[in-house]
């Protein structure tokens, strides 16, 4: 497919616009203890990229995700995840679970860092709005009181279509950050 011509003054054709690979479908801030992005997954796209940056937490904690129908999260023990983690002090920070009520994003901090930006993560979400298992690949980098990196993946094990995602953290912890959700053109 040719590269579209985005020169100044050129008319953007439908063909050019249709060749754009990523299209922003939702955005908002991480806030409170849980944040829903409702209606962001549709049949228009199969797969999505989620970029979360400028994260801070009010105290030690992790950020997790759940899949949504409307604003209702799926809370059955149908999530699985496995992450390799490592820190600059050579400590391992691996995570895994084989059937729980939420999935990790790999992002965590170990000290209270209210108001200080401590990291970012990205997620590729595969087929959330398709009646199949939802798979996630993601990578998180945090600066809690040193540097901690995790890379890995998670899945929701039901072959059901969903239309949104919830990010949540631990009891008594609140989140801040920016979230942008993009659809990959089919």
């Amino acid at each position, binding site marked *: 497919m040719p590269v579209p011509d985005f020169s100044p003054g050129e008319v953007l054709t439908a063909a050019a616009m249709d060749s754009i690979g990523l299209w922003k479908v939702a955005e908002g801030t991480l806030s409170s203890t849980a944040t*829903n992005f409702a209606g962001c997954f549709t049949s228009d796209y199969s797969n999505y990229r989620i970029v979360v940056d400028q994260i801070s937490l009010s105290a030690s904690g992790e950020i997790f995700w759940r899949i949504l129908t409307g604003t209702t999260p799926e809370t059955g023990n149908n999530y699985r995840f496995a992450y390799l983690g490592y820190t600059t002090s050579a400590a391992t920070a691996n995570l895994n679970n084989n059937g729980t*009520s939420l999935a990790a994003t790999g992002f965590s901090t170990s000290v209270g860092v209210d108001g200080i930006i401590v990291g970012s993560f990205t997620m590729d979400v595969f087929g959330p709005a398709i009646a199949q298992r939802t798979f996630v690949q993601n990578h998180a980098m945090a600066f809690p009181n040193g540097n901690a990196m995790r890379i890995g993946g998670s899945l929701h094990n039901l072959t059901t279509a969903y239309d949104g995602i919830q990010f949540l953290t631990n009891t008594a912890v609140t989140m801040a950050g920016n979230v942008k959700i993009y659809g990959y053109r089919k």
Partner: protein
Amino acid sequence: MKAQITTHYADGRPSETRDMTDEEIALLPEPLTTVEVEDETPSPD
């Protein structure tokens, strides 16, 4: 203060924030792990 939940709608409806119900709070996770590294608290420089 009760834990709260915020919802952003992809269809353009205004975002909403409300108190979480007791049932929702009961489903919040406990920390999975603690990442122990050297004491090097970041500063907003």
